[in-house]
């Protein structure tokens, strides 16, 4: 197989974002005609960035793309499609009120902008495509009324209608039920039979093992290696995907956890599409303990946090804080009861970018008496408070009256952590606390979380950064498709076991 010319080659691709983030550090991949290539990696490894470059959505900083031996450069997705490369995104790009037929023919409806669309002809063509692939989708129903799995097939049809012969699927199973996954795989096998080439982006080991011919593993913007699936084992892939180098050292003295501060019982939460994002979780966080939740993003972590922080409806189950049932309580009550929340979305939730450091320093505690003088806000006290936060957490800011958007990401995050800690909570949710944060700030924040734990606070850490969870947690759970694959102690588990659990293989639950 290695001798033939690849149908597609991406050579030495480098992508540096305007803010300096190096997403890809010279990635080379080869795809051969008629194969299913798996692209495996953790969140932020660079899989999607690489494919967006291939699909003409992003410009590479450096590097070349060869299609059937010829160098190509795509200016837009339409350009890529015209060259026979199609992509189905994780988040579908469908016009929700259009039916399948309209979505599929959009942009290539036939001759004459102002002549009647030849619906019958399109229908015939589509019917033929569907018959060949051995599946059906309703063509006349608005796609918003169709299940996610069907919408995905419409996306695939949309690409095939344009005669693409290389199809990229970005985390196609992330939103599917197990039955839908099986159906999707059947479609993919049919496509392969027809000679199509498929790039399958995933972090799920079982799926990669099942459907691909070869797997290229990417980690932190670099290719770790490429293996034939028939020669790979889940264990090997897990090691390749997760294997890492620890940079940061965190001092963490041993500590006996105290009483249960926070408890979740059989929690069910729905996602934005109405799917069950959290499926019956039960766990507890004790005083003086960091409980970490690891796992690839999009496995229900966001929904879990929002539900316990009062920002999303709990479908079923109970949440307790210090023994009190807090299910369905609003954020304001929760904060007054001793909860603090470092949200995962810094810029859209944790801060109001256009407002000042001062104004942001009291968000979620602005009603407290210490900041009021009669019915007026006491800006002097607020300023003192903001100054205290800046000093204590070494936030580098032009001043307390500067808009928060003028701060760097790391300093914005430190400001949030400072504010949340200043609420004097007993229980802190820290969601992706160091994402997109510089190394110095990361170290500071991680050490601070440990300090809180040493001060006998209960900390719930949710992070897609496995190192972070491993380093900080006293106990950790690995979340996959809304459930815990296991709850383990970081020092009693191997990388391989964690990799397997992140890929959806259940570990041994710990007593």
């Amino acid at each position, binding site marked *: 197989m290695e001798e033939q010319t690849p149908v597609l080659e991406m050579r030495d691709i480098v992508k540096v974002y305007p803010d300096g983030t190096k997403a890809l550090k010279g990635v080379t991949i080869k795809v051969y005609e008629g194969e299913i290539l798996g692209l495996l990696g953790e969140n932020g490894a660079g899989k999607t960035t690489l494919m967006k470059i291939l699909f003409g959505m992003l410009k590479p900083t450096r590097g070349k793309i060869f299609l059937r031996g010829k160098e190509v450069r795509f200016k837009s997705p339409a350009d890529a499609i015209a060259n026979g490369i199609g992509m189905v995104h994780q988040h579908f790009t469908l016009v929700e009120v259009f039916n399948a037929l309209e979505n599929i023919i959009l942009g290539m409806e036939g001759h004459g902008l102002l002549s009647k669309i030849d619906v019958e002809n399109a229908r015939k063509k589509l019917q033929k495509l569907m018959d060949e692939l051995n599946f059906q989708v309703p063509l006349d129903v608005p796609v918003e009324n169709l299940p996610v799995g069907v919408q995905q097939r419409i996306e695939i049809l949309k690409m095939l209608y344009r005669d693409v012969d290389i199809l990229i699927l970005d985390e196609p199973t992330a939103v599917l039920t197990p039955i839908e996954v099986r159906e999707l795989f059947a479609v993919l096998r049919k496509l392969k039979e027809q000679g199509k080439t498929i790039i399958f982006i995933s972090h799920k080991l079982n799926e990669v093992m099942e459907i691909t011919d070869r797997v290229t593993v990417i980690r932190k913007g670099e290719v770790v290696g490429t293996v034939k699936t028939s020669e790979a084992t889940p264990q090997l892939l897990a090691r390749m995907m997760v294997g890492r180098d620890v940079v940061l050292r965190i001092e963490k003295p041993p500590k006996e956890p105290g009483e249960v501060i926070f408890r979740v019982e059989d929690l069910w939460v729905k996602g934005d599409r109405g799917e069950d994002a959290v499926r019956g979780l039960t766990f507890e966080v004790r005083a003086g303990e960091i409980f970490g939740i690891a796992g690839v993003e999009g496995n229900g972590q966001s929904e879990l946090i929002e539900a316990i*922080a009062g920002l999303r409806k709990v479908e079923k189950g109970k949440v307790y804080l210090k023994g009190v049932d807090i299910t369905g309580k609003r*954020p304001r009550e929760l904060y007054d009861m001793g909860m603090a929340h470092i949200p995962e979305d810094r810029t859209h939730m944790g801060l*109001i*970018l256009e*407002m000042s450091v001062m104004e942001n320093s009291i*968000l979620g505690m602005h009603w407290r008496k210490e900041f009021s003088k009669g019915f007026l*806000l006491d800006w002097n006290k607020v300023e003192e408070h903001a100054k205290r936060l800046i000093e204590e957490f070494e936030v580098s800011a032009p001043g307390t*009256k500067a808009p928060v958007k003028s701060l760097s990401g790391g300093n914005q995050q430190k400001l949030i952590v400072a504010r949340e800690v200043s609420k004097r909570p007993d229980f802190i949710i820290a969601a992706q606390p160091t994402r997109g944060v510089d190394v110095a700030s990361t170290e500071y924040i991680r050490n601070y979380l440990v300090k809180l734990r040493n001060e006998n606070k209960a900390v719930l850490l949710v992070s897609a950064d496995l190192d972070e969870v491993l380093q900080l947690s006293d106990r950790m759970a690995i979340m996959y498709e809304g459930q815990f694959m296991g709850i383990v102690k970081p020092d009693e588990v191997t990388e391989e076991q964690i990799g397997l659990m992140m890929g959806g293989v259940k570990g041994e639950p710990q007593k």
Partner: protein
Amino acid sequence: MNLKNELRGYAKPVAESVLAILIGVLVGALVLWFSGYSPLEAYYWLIVGSLASTDGIAETLAKSAPLILTAITFAIGARTGLFNVGAEGTVYFGAMAAIIVTQYLQNPIAGLLAGLLIGALWALPAAVLKVYRGVHEVISTIMFNWIAFFLVSWLAVSVYYNPKDPNSTLPIPPSARLPLLIKGTSLSWAFIVAILSAIIVFIVMWHTKLGYELRTSGQNPRAAEYGGINPKRSAIWSFVIGGMTAGLAGAGLVMGTPPSYAITQGLANVHGYGFDGIGVSLVGRNHPLGIIFAGILFGALSAGATAMQQHAHVPLEMIKVIEGIIIIAVAVPGLLDLFARPFRRGEA
């Protein structure tokens, strides 16, 4: 240094507004010139009529009062993430409420309170439709403006008409009128009410918890919710406070404008303030203090228009042309950058 920082924050919006005003004046001059008038003469009389005499200044300030109040309606909305264009209809109701209530309670405070209250009440349906049915406020408030127009017209023509003057409603009784600040002009306490309202709104918006919650909801509803703020509650407050100032504008108009102290036929003398107020708010950068200045500017344009028509024979509607151009200029994204760029290139 802190003060300097703070001032720098205001510099850009102020500069953008000044630039927009300049564009309005310049394009207005071109229109005048093309139409065969002398721009210099027109502007000369515009300034003389509005600013060169006590009477002119009094007229300028008197005209600015309702504009400041309706501008605040829009500004509170804008600061809360809402496009509330409902001031127009609320003004009619505020004026009518003042007339009705002062027939029974012959006291200026009663009249103003009536305007305030009816303003708050009339704002509620749009607020409820927005929060509970997701009806966009631009659409609903335009509808409510029309409904207000016809309902108040009916009250004016069929219920509270003046038996002695078929062209107007019952007048505000003399003891309930807002006292004049300068005898022989139309400058009354309505202006003081407008300025006080602007200051109160400024304090509420920037120095109270409620204002903090309203602004947070407007800037970032998700962050607001996370911060323990109910964005829906904020939206309702925004409509209600905005309704109050628009209602006051209407009450002040009929209670403080000699000689009629009544609503005239076709609601002519209470018409248009709501929409002009939007322009005032935009030029005043949706800030109560900026609005005071912008309101006085627009007031000066109206006040000077009469002199311009009399002496330079330019139709007084010319000022609406200038106002319209100013607002379109304000709508150009990055207006200042557009103009600053060629200069920067020159430096290089």
